[in-house]
């Protein structure tokens, strides 16, 4: 005999304003099988939960309906309360009286009647609920970190320090990411390499970290706790086990004039190369697109000079599978291409460069050994103009959003330039200076007051090159209300921050959402900023939104903490809402097996004691099933049902309306 309790929540005024909650609980108390009907201002509060717990014990309830907010909000809360009182938590259901009723209606009488209907529906369902047990799945305590920039390195080091294994995958030949390219870092002017390279070495040598450089994620199977990820190990044409990194090969390589991506195209590299001298691993790869041996079969010089015989022109991409329990995506960013701005030269003016190019000019390890020289003629520029918001805050040709880091790095650039060229003039065109961070505002003031950077509030309309090589910058000083023209030797554009190419495809592999600009979506913008909608997949760094280094490192450590939290238990508990096959009626038509998007439905042989196969049927893997119900809908003999949402329960709900 069913003994059901109905508890109606006012949700402050959210429900109570439009629904007469007392009338709903009184009406519910008269429904068949209901023994208790109550209402309270905040059912989710401790006194509210106590009402439910007390009623379960005193009235010996066999089922509970809570008429309150969406089950997405508080189903977990109320089921936990029911469990504390000794009731199986899956015997509690919620009627959504807020999102489905009070928030979308204004007529009180009608809203109250609808609330009563919604409660009656759930009472009819709960009478047919069966106790369920959460499913336990084992966890593979190894993490995959995708991206070997500072975000990926930090996350990998933190997980490794927590005693768990990490596979760190990087698409380039070396880890280090963009941070390895920076000269100095705001707001302290630490040398970027000095603080990063020790971490790179630590990541490579840590016993818990397996480094896979020149590798990419090819495919993903499985679910939280049990992912199987296939990694494409791209052909390096150099056997890292034999190579000692002596450098004979790239010193001899005759293909010398390839623009070096690491130096933003300002320096040159060979066809066999390490991207920079501090690379980790410090072992070269062959760029197949430029190598004449690989393209035309001519040359072979590197193989001849290699004392260890490490060069292998037959090398091919290999696929490697790793089993991991959690994933951290840390794929980072790149700069937007300012070629779209025709009025700024459309990318054709050599002395109009982006922020990374300036970083390489200012870096002691850069192509000019830290001397500021302009690309066109190698002369020291005496007037440098910096343009902020280039492609940011401009949805006509660029991006709608603020790229967040440009105000600070432009101040740093102006400062570094003034430190290096004492008689030089640094002019910064800005729209707003957004320096919200510890020591940031002080840093910008220092650039203006101590280092003499000239800040002009306005946007630049046009950059043209005069015959004498000067760049004529037409800007405005909006505070003075007048146009400003500056003859510059070098212009640095603070290009917008955009996600890496291919990041959308990677998101699709992992089932992670992304926004219209391609940045990965967090599960909740405030309360779950590190998680994604895909369980067990976490985010770190600029792949989620433009971020500076301190923020990136914070988020990477947060992602590592989430991974370690997941790995702290040997098993995961999952909601038992999964499909179940009735073996007595299953005709083994295999429709469910071909329909299942998760590969959870599979063949099963019913055997006798001797092991002889009596009959084949379909079966569902509890670990893989996500409870989507596709199999139940395609089953022709109605042999598949979804726990918690059986046909019988749904029919009862509909009949109660």
């Amino acid at each position, binding site marked *: 005999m069913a003994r059901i309790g109905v508890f109606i929540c006012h949700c402050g005024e959210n429900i109570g304003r439009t629904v007469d909650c007392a009338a709903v609980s009184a009406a519910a108390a008269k429904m068949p099988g209901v023994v208790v009907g109550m209402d309270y201002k905040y059912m989710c509060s401790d006194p509210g939960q106590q009402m439910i717990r007390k009623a379960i014990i005193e009235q010996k309830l066999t089922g509970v309906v809570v008429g309150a907010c969406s089950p997405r909000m508080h189903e977990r809360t109320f089921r936990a309360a029911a469990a504390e009182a000794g009731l199986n938590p899956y015997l509690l259901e919620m009627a959504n009286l807020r999102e489905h009723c009070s928030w979308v209606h204004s007529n009180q009488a009608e809203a109250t009647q609808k609330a009563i209907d919604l409660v009656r529906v759930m009472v009819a369902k709960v009478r047919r609920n069966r106790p369920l047990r959460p499913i336990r799945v084992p966890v593979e305590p190894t993490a995959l970190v995708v991206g070997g920039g500072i975000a990926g390195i930090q996350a990998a080091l933190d997980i490794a320090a927590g005693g768990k294994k990490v596979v760190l995958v990087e698409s380039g030949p070396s880890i280090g990411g963009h941070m390895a390219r920076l000269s100095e870092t705001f707001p302290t002017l630490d040398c970027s390499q000095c603080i990063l390279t020790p971490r790179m070495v630590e990541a490579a040598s840590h016993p818990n970290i397996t480094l896979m450089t020149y590798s990419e994620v090819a495919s993903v199977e499985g679910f939280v706790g049990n992912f199987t990820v296939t990694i494409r190990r791209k052909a390096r044409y150099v056997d890292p086990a034999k190579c000692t990194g002596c450098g004979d090969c790239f010193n001899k390589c005759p293909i010398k004039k390839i623009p070096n991506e690491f130096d933003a195209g300002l320096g040159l590299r060979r066809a066999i190369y390490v991207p920079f001298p501090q690379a980790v691993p410090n072992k070269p790869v062959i760029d197949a697109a430029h190598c004449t041996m690989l393209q035309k079969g001519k040359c072979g010089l590197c193989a001849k000079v290699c004392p260890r015989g490490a060069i292998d022109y037959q090398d091919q991409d290999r696929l490697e599978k790793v089993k991991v329990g959690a994933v951290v995506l840390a794929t980072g960013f790149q700069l937007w291409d300012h070629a779209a701005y025709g*009025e700024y030269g459309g990318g054709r003016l050599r002395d109009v460069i982006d922020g990374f190019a300036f970083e390489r000019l200012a870096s002691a390890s850069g192509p000019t050994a830290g001397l500021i020289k302009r690309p066109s003629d190698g002369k020291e520029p005496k007037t440098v103009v910096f343009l902020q*918001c280039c492609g940011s*805050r*401009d*949805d*006509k*040709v*660029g991006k709608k959003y603020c790229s967040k880091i440009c105000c600070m790095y432009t101040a740093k650039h102006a400062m570094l330039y003034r430190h290096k060229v004492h008689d030089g003039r640094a002019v910064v065109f800005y*729209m707003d200076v957004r320096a919200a961070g510890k020591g940031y505002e002080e840093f910008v003031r220092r650039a203006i007051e101590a280092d003499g950077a000239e800040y002009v*509030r*306005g*946007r*630049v*309309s*046009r950059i043209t090159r005069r015959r004498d090589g000067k760049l004529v910058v*037409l*800007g*405005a*000083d*909006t505070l003075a*209300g*007048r*146009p*400003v023209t500056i003859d510059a030797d070098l212009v640095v554009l603070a290009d917008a921050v955009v996600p890496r190419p291919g990041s959308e495809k990677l998101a699709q592999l992992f089932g992670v959402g992304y926004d219209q600009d391609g940045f990965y979506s967090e599960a909740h913008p405030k309360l779950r900023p590190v998680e994604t909608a895909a369980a067990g997949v976490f985010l770190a760094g600029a792949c989620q939104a433009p971020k500076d280094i301190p923020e990136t490192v914070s988020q990477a450590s947060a992602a590592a903490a989430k991974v370690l939290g997941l790995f702290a238990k040997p098993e995961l508990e999952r909601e038992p809402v999964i499909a179940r096959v009735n073996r007595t009626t299953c005709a083994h038509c295999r429709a469910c097996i071909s329909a299942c998007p998760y590969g959870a439905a599979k063949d099963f042989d019913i055997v006798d004691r001797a092991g002889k196969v009596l009959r084949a049927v379909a079966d569902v893997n509890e670990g893989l099933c996500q409870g989507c119900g596709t199999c139940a809908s395609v089953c022709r003999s109605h042999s598949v049902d979804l726990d918690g949402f059986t046909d019988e329960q749904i029919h009862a709900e509909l009949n109660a309306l």
Partner: protein
Amino acid sequence: MSGTKEHALAKAARETAGVVLSECYQCGKCTAGCPMARYMDLSPNQIMRLAQAGDDAALERLLGCEALWYCVGCLTCAQRCPRKLDPAAVMDLLREMAHRRGKIPAAARKVLAFHKAFLDTVEHGGRMAEIPLVLRYKMKSLDLLGDVMLGPVMLAKRKLPLLPHRIRGRGEVRRIFKKCREEHRP
């Protein structure tokens, strides 16, 4: 636009110029690219800012400024505006308002005289003609000797044809002018 209060100028700018004034974030790219900005008493971005304010004092400054009359309508501002706005169209709207009000600053009277001479020439001959335009402008502005040395230079470069071109549908052009006058009579 629901829920926001819109002043009269903002409404006019939206309806006749297609410009939502609140969308301007004062970057100054209009001023930066404007070939006439250096001659203006209010820069284009200041005009947009005062138009955003839209109060009586702002309107007084806008309708009395010289800058309105210096805008040549080259549309560089509209072409480069990152918010897809058209400051030149706002200038047009303000110019019409100032003209209707009748208080034109002294420095702008010659500009107005030129506009009028131009329109008179077109109304009369059906299209622009250099010599009649110059004559009408001199009569209206009483600036008889200004730029007089440019005449021979332009003549030599064949930029000043002595005989005006006339078009066939002069009557139709006149009717267009007549209709416009009727429609815009206050």
